[in-house]
């Protein structure tokens, strides 16, 4: 069965005064129907831009998708007209954004913001849309839906607003939902609730989910597969469990080590990823992680490693020493043994 979403060699750039930023520099990955895929990386790694590029929501100017195909249900989204693309947005692909505080329109009622999507894509009348909105708001776990629909965003808490965003994304029974750091702006307890809700709903309704996060805990618990991004590229990709237990890219290893652990003695120091993310306008021919990498060799400066299959089935990494890393970091396995799976 072909994948629901197949992204091939996608490039997105931003033209700025300081030069062209290759925010997404040739990413390739796929998402199967009903599957949850996590995109992980630090700020500025291109994970959000990559996701927005799928829906062609990059502000142009300064942004532009310069290359690549995004096959969704067999159609290349990059070749659709703006009108055809509009019909995909919100209908076949839903989107949940990072900031629930600012992502809802402050002057429209919650109800209106849900029903307008239905009216737009399903062509239903107001009463039908209203009925479905009540159903959706109930589905995302908000009590007293009829009263809530008449309220405005400022009358709801952050967690509730994010539930509303999820309801909007679900409105037209999409096949895919893209969630761009959906819990970053929320309290920890609320984060868990929102993630559980998304997991539950996507499983129950058979919706594929791309979840963009910098939180490795989220990845471990909710994702089937993981793509680790660095400087606009995917540097490692594979099943969540494999990425956790046998990371094959030095950046992934560093990321995993930088996670604070409650189950270890407090004396143990945090091990942050040393150095700064690279300047995306000035990348050289070599591996972009090289300046921060403990395992860099001469070959890393000469050319950029491609994302290739490792000795672990299903797992690929963009590192010349991917297969060596397992032996080089012998203690890694032990150190990560406590990581949630």
């Amino acid at each position, binding site marked *: 069965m072909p994948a629901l979403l197949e992204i091939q060699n996608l490039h997105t750039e931003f033209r700025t005064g300081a030069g062209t930023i290759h925010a997404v520099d040739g990413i390739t990955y796929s998402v199967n129907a009903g599957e949850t895929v996590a995109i992980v990386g630090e700020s500025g790694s291109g994970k959000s831009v990559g996701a927005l590029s799928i829906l062609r929501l990059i502000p142009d100017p300064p942004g532009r998708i310069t290359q690549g195909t995004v096959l969704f249900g067999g159609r290349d989204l990059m070749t659709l007209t703006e009108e055809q693309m509009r019909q995909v947005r919100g209908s076949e692909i839903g989107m949940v954004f990072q900031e629930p505080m600012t*992502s809802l329109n402050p*002057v429209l009622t919650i109800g209106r913001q849900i029903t307008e999507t239905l009216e*737009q894509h399903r062509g239903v009348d107001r009463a039908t849309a209203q009925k479905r909105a009540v159903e959706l708001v109930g589905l995302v776990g908000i009590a007293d839906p009829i009263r809530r629909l008449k309220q405005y965003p400022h009358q709801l808490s952050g967690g509730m607003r994010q539930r509303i965003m999820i309801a909007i994304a679900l409105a037209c029974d999409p096949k895919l939902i893209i969630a761009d750091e959906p819990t970053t702006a929320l309290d920890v307890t609320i984060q868990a609730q929102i993630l559980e809700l998304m997991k539950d709903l996507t499983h129950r309704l058979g919706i594929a989910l791309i979840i963009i996060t910098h939180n490795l805990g989220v990845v471990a618990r909710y994702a089937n597969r993981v793509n680790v991004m660095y400087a606009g590229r995917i540097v490692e990709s594979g099943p969540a469990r494999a990425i956790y237990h046998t990371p094959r890219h030095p950046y992934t290893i560093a990321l995993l080590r930088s996670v604070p652990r409650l189950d270890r003695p407090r004396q143990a120091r945090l091990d942050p990823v040393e150095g700064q993310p690279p300047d995306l306008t000035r990348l050289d021919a070599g591996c972009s992680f090289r300046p921060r990498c403990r395992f860099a060799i001469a070959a890393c400066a000469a050319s950029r490693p491609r994302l290739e299959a490792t000795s672990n089935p299903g797992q690929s990494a963009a590192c010349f020493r991917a297969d060596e890393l397992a032996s080089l970091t012998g203690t890694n396995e032990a150190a990560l043994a406590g990581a949630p799976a």
Partner: protein
Amino acid sequence: MYLYIIKRVLLVIPTLIGAAALVFLLMRLIPGDVCVIRLGSSGGTFDPKAVALCHQELGMNRPIWVQFFDFMWGIVRFDFGTSMWSGKPVTTEIWARLPVSLEIALLGSVLATVIAIPLGTLSALRQNSWLDVFVRVFAIGGIATPSFWLGIISLLIVLDLTSFFLGAAWMPPIDYVPFFEDPIRNLSMVLLPAITIGYRYSAITMRMTRSTMLEVMREDYIRTARAKGLIHKLIINRHALKNAMLPVVTLIGIEFAFLIGGLVVTEQVFNLNGVGRLFVQAVQNQDYTLTQALVMMTVVVFVFCNLVVDLLYAWLDPRIRYS
């Protein structure tokens, strides 16, 4: 919400009292008075006895606090007395001139708003296009052009064009006819001044619309609206404009209030017998009663416009309505 309206309306009372006291005092700080001007207008010397008699007639020989309470008591009863200069009731003087000023202000505001909001919006949506450049130049021109100059130029253009095409120069009528009596004559009188003041007004409004619209279009909820796959028209009309209009409404309200009392120069250029001109005459003649009444009227207009703006705000923005 109702509490909010009541509070807003009650706040008007101290504002009015303060304004009344201020204008009463300021008028009396100007050296000389209406009697001196009236009797000395011929340029010769005048009899102090005549001045004293005049003061007595106008009640200006009474202690100042008596005059003040008389004035305040008059306001409460909507009795502003008679003009110290013409001897006619103040309300008669104002009523005779208010329609033309009000009509020009209204027409100017409507013209300005109708032009400014769509152009400002389009300009923001097509940032850096030729349309945007045109709108920005047009707006800068409107802010930089003094309205008296624009008034004179537009009159000259009308004169030249009519004499060229019709053979005889045509001038707008100078006596005011109410719109419902003779719409064509009425409009031919007020249209030019309305355009003259409307240009500057629309320039400011356009710039405000453009900048807030640019800001709003970068908001997260606009991205959400796009991600929902809404058609462009809906994103602009329902999601962007309603948010962008908040500061624009304030601007329109304040500008309108300003026009009622501030048309002095335009009225002079077009030779219109309006409130602005009456204002200048009243101050020149040191006509206390008339000036006081005019200032009170202007204050009331300002306060009323602000009240309307606040109510509109509450209507547009639920965050205010429910707090």
